[in-house]
């Protein structure tokens, strides 16, 4: 997934490949141990990112929890690929962290 020159558009383009089949959800370890909390699944995370990018949602503590608790384990990607879509889910989540929360490394210094 190439992010330049427009990271937001690149993220949305990649997100738009998702068919919402949810095959990736069941294999996500954080979804499994949360007792089936959709926000802590792969599909849940990419929906959150989509809505953060389009301004439907604002990045608060709960959504930060969803975004940063991803293990980057790529198990969801394997399933997505096997089902024929091959979204770069980990890359989406990691780039979203960098794009949506660029100040996280500075916020403490500035006093959140």
């Amino acid at each position, binding site marked *: 997934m190439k992010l330049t020159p427009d990271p937001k558009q690149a993220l949305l383009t990649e997100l738009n490949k998702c068919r919402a089949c949810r095959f990736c959800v069941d294999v996500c370890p954080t979804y499994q141990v949360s007792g089936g909390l959709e926000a802590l699944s792969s599909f849940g995370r990419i929906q959150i990112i989509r809505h953060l990018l389009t301004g439907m949602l604002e990045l608060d503590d709960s959504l930060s*929890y969803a975004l*940063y608790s991803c*293990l980057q384990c790529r198990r969801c990607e394997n399933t997505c690929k096997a089902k024929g879509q091959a979204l770069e889910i980990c890359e989406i989540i990691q780039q979203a962290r960098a794009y949506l929360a660029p100040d996280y490394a500075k916020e403490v210094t500035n006093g959140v």
Partner: protein
Amino acid sequence: MASNTRRVISQALSTLQRNTLSTGDPLGFNQVYWTDWAQGLGLPKGGSPCLYTGRMYQMLPYAGQAAKLANRYQGWLACPGMSQLMNLGNRLAGESTIRRMAGTGGEIAQRARRALRGIWAGLRAAGVGPGYLYDAEPYSGVLLHELGADPGARTQASRLAALFQSKGIGEVVAVDPHTVHFLRDDFPELLEGAGVKLSHYLELLAPAAERLAPKAELPMTEVVVHDSCVMARHLGIVEQTRSVAAALGLKVLEPPNHGQDTACCGGPIEYGFEDLCAEVSLLRARELAGVGSQVMVTCPICLLNLSRHESELGLRIWDLGELLDLALGGDKAAA
């Protein structure tokens, strides 16, 4: 923790970034802690190929303590103004505190030391015979990248590439999958630009597996192999692990979810999501325990996280490096 997640992540990222960029070490340690494992081995200083540990194994006893501290102070971060105070008093989780809590490092430090000596012994048996940079070995920046702080990660990785280039090192052998993936796949232009070829040690050991005939008997005849996510899915190293285990005379038992479909040990989120991390690692440890009690891993993060469930589930988690050390006699070979 959801009520103060932003502060927790900010604190973790700021501390990691500040530590890495100011001291060159993610823990912010000034005192060298990453060379003890090589004592007495007589590795040549520098030269190509060069063994690059990335400090990941050596960090294990301290990383566990740092994560414990970070998780302990999470409640405080919810209080207004406390994040600023924590920032000023960042040394709450500073070198002396973490060192004191880790003591001599305990068993995990011994295992990490043994794993590195075993990896070196394996490489030597395979005819690679790498050198080592000792205290001049920098940290890679991988943890910053994994938390999405790429500018800091790039700065640190650039320093590393420049160092290899300045020392005329064209071949580097790294020991953990996270560091290899970060340097080879996430910022490939940095090492390529410096004319450096990076390998994971298993990529060199597997083709030379017939040279790894054990000199000593291992305490088990079969192992359950836990594939690290990064190793299997990012680097595609699956068969190499099995051929090296087989060369040591071990029968490989496959757990549910193995190879490309492996399940995570939970480690990557330990820094701020202790409960979730513990539940993910327990889930995986139970899967492994259902197949056998002797488990083999190939990643320091898996070693640390899965070993936490050893007594509860009657497991022993071995790093492949430890088994190489036992089989090839890293300590004896150095004598």
